[in-house]
């Protein structure tokens, strides 16, 4: 599947079907700091991602204070 990531902006290919949580773990990303959007729709941690999906992992941590 095609995975779009940020900071820096980039796209990577990840093999195989897997759940959202599994994808985050595989990329060493913290669930609390990200939303996952599959083919334009927000999806929860146990959603299954298929090989031909386009996935965006969007960080939600903002820096100002």
């Amino acid at each position, binding site marked *: 599947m095609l995975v779009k990531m*940020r*900071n820096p902006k980039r796209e990577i290919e990840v093999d195989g079907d897997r759940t959202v949580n599994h994808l985050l773990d595989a990329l060493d990303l*913290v*669930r*609390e*700091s*990200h*939303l996952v*959007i599959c083919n334009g*729709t*927000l*999806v*929860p*941690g*146990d*959603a299954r991602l298929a090989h031909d999906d386009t996935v965006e992992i*969007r*960080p*939600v*941590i*903002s*820096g*100002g*204070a």
Partner: protein
Amino acid sequence: SKCRSCKAPAVIDLPRHNANFCAEHLLQLCRRQMSKAIDDYDMFGPDDRILVAVSGGKDSLAVWDMLIEAGYRADGLYVGLGIGDYSDESTEHVTAFAADRGLHLITVDLRDTFGYDIPTAARATKRAPCSACGMSKRHLFDQAAIDGGYDVVVTGHNLDDEAAVLLGNVLHWDIEYLARQLPVLPAQHGFPRKAKPLVRLTERETAAWCLLRGIDYLVEECPIAAGNRHLHHKDVLNAIERESPSTKSAFYLNFIDNMAPLLAEQSAAASGDLRRCVRCGAPTTGETCAFCRLVDTASAHDPVPVELVLGKRGR
């Protein structure tokens, strides 16, 4: 997985509530948490005129959207900081948001109005960029609220922001800072009332609000803030949260409930002698306020491009 409320397919899992939610019930959760914060902390009422400080990021656009949706009278204030492409894109997101919804947006550009920008201010004052930025924004929010007759300035600070600041304050136990870390500060000494209606929502929830409401916010973060201590404290709290969900909200909300009352007695005494800045009229302890002194120093300096301050982070 299914929504806790209606059993429809879920779009998000919220470990701190140990539940999943569909789009509609996630939005409902956000509405309820904001309304609970506004009521519990007595932030403002339906007749108050609200000035929302907007940056183009998810939190400030979410709070403006939520306030308008809830029927509040809320205008926006945007400060152009001159942080290269980041500020240009921020401006586009904020103006498009306001225009699409027919909302009133006040814009102040630091370079146009005061002759400096944040990268130049950082270089000219030899201080951390985040310090010049925070000080400039606070001053302009206050001034715009007083000048425009607004009852309250609202910012988009969320639970993660407040918990991270609280962690920083707790690590050094500066009682003055701790005493001032409240979800609402009353108008006093010439400063307007200030409120943070999103303190009961995590940034994951405010981002989800924006996504589900179709709000086109600027996802990219300020390039200068990247890697600062505030962000490190957020990582630390998220590591704790992963081990024991809902600790982050307990940390912030129990502080407000259990500790803030104890500290209030302390800080009441310490407000000191304030007079009016001879230049701008803002409350200050000296002759001229810190903002007017920053303007003098920064506007006299040659413009500095943002790339030159990226090595000097706001640590």
